[in-house]
């Protein structure tokens, strides 16, 4: 089998996202392993920036019934509000872009065979982006909208 730097490059390309993810998840600033005369060191460049301690849930692989949304880029200030059931969603009246959300408030219900299952906000802030509309079918865990933290509404 021919070996060359290009293939090594390809290998590293496929590895890097994994290493970076692990680095972030573990919260370590640097990982180094030495063996057989070689060193592999993975280091977070900006060690000052806070590292998210909770990884974002993986994007659903299955097609979602409603228009599936791409997962939002990890962002400390934006928090997705997720469906707590599978069914048809109904957003609360004040849920529109720019609307205010208080932590713990009832922001939506999901109709499950006529039973309204509550969705409450884990974070307070401003509605930054809607990912569904009232009447849409939603799956369990689906992102309904994003809340952006603001100074006065502390999480």
């Amino acid at each position: 089998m021919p070996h060359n730097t290009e293939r090594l490059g390809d290998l590293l390309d496929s590895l890097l996202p994994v290493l970076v993810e692990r680095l972030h998840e573990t919260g370590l600033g640097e990982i180094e392993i030495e063996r057989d005369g070689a060193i592999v060191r993975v280091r977070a460049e900006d060690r000052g920036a806070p590292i998210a301690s909770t990884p974002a849930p993986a994007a659903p692989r299955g097609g979602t019934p409603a228009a599936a949304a791409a997962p939002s880029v990890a962002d400390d200030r934006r928090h997705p509000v997720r469906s707590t059931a599978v069914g048809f969603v109904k957003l609360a009246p004040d849920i529109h872009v720019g609307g205010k959300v208080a932590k713990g408030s009832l922001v939506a219900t999901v109709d499950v065979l006529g039973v309204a299952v509550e969705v409450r906000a884990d974070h307070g802030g401003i509605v930054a982006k809607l990912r569904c509309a009232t009447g849409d079918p939603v799956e369990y865990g689906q992102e309904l909208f994003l809340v952006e933290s603001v100074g006065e509404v502390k999480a």
Partner: protein
Amino acid sequence: MIKRVLIANRGEIALRILRACRQLGIEAVVAYSEADRESRAVLVADEAICIGPADAKRSYLSAPAVISAALATGCDAIHPGYGFLSENAAFAEAAAAHGITFIGPSAEVLERFESKAAVRALLAKHGLPTIPGSDGVVADEAAAAKAAEKIGYPVILKASAGGGGRGMRVIQSADDLTQLFSLCTQEAQAAFGDGSLYIEKYLIDTHHVEVQIAVDKSGTALHFGERDCSVQRRHQKLVEESPSTALTPKVREEFLVRAAKAIGAAGYRNLGTLEFLVGPDGKPYFIEINCRIQVEHPVTEMVTGVDLVALQIRLAAGELMPMTQAEVERRGHAIEFRLTAEDPAMEFRPQAGEITTFRSPSGPWVRFDSHLYAGYEVPPYYDSLLAKLIVWGNTREEAIARSRAALLEVEIDGVATTRDFFLGRLETPSFLNGTATTGMLDAIGTADILAAAPKARA
């Protein structure tokens, strides 16, 4: 006709149902829990929907979640697979109330065939021999003692609502009965929400033989031959085959015809399995019915050439039986091995973790039904079935030789599996000569079986 099916199950059977839907040109949506987001059926399906968290009670066992998912995805039918909600009459009824076809017997039929004791009485009336036992549920300890005396010890106490080997206890004497009756009642109440018990003669050295049947809405009932599931460990089936080595040709044909006739006459509908014990006298006694597709259905498929899951869907859609009994030709011999994530060297302790290598066996007459792939994380929440190896041969000997070769080709790394246990089992005389009975494996002991396994190179 059914247009779009919600597959409300996981693992290999979700994939199997998906394949049947594709075969029929029916759309399919896979319902999955958060723990199964990366499962093969979800990845392969055209559409999938998350119905809840890993906890089955809030996903695969939640009737509202499953029916709501069917409505949300525009499905007009639900296939429940096996386990979970597959024999749940209330679920079938709720689905029907929302205009959704339950792929299985109707709620009314499920209810009628729910109680083991009642079903035994019903089918006895329709001509099936049953194991001598109590006349239905025993009211109390006194009634139990009276029934046991009449049948003769040893007897077996069974929970009327039990199944899959759970909720049963062998009673050797009147003293045992006195000691254990109320304990068993409590256990049954705790496990199944129903403390009723019934009593049967305890047969030793039995074969477990079952008949695959199907009945259309008009009552036309066919059988698809029998399966022998005598290789069990603690009442759990490990290996299944068709035909059974426990029946003579003469007994077999008469028995199969009688089973199909009885179940049709008793009002059963859709796919089902009648389970029998065959004692040392070579005669089958009816013990219970399973109102769903079974894990071991592929051995019947390999022998008959009939796609049972597709047939089940067509019958649920209201079609009449698309074939006659004469057209169900049985050919050769098939064996299935249930490969599980259990460590035979550690008392079959269940395993979970990432599958690091996955290479399936292949070649002529080797079928490998599995939801695994390299990189898949086996979740710890559900049953431990990883794959079913199904092998066909013109004769039992040919099927066994092919099984050995196919098992040697199985490569699953990352979790301990039962592969080597089966390789060893294939070398034991009781398996080779077809005399294995249901209690035998527990008597032999795992270590001896593992030691008999040839070593694979790959």
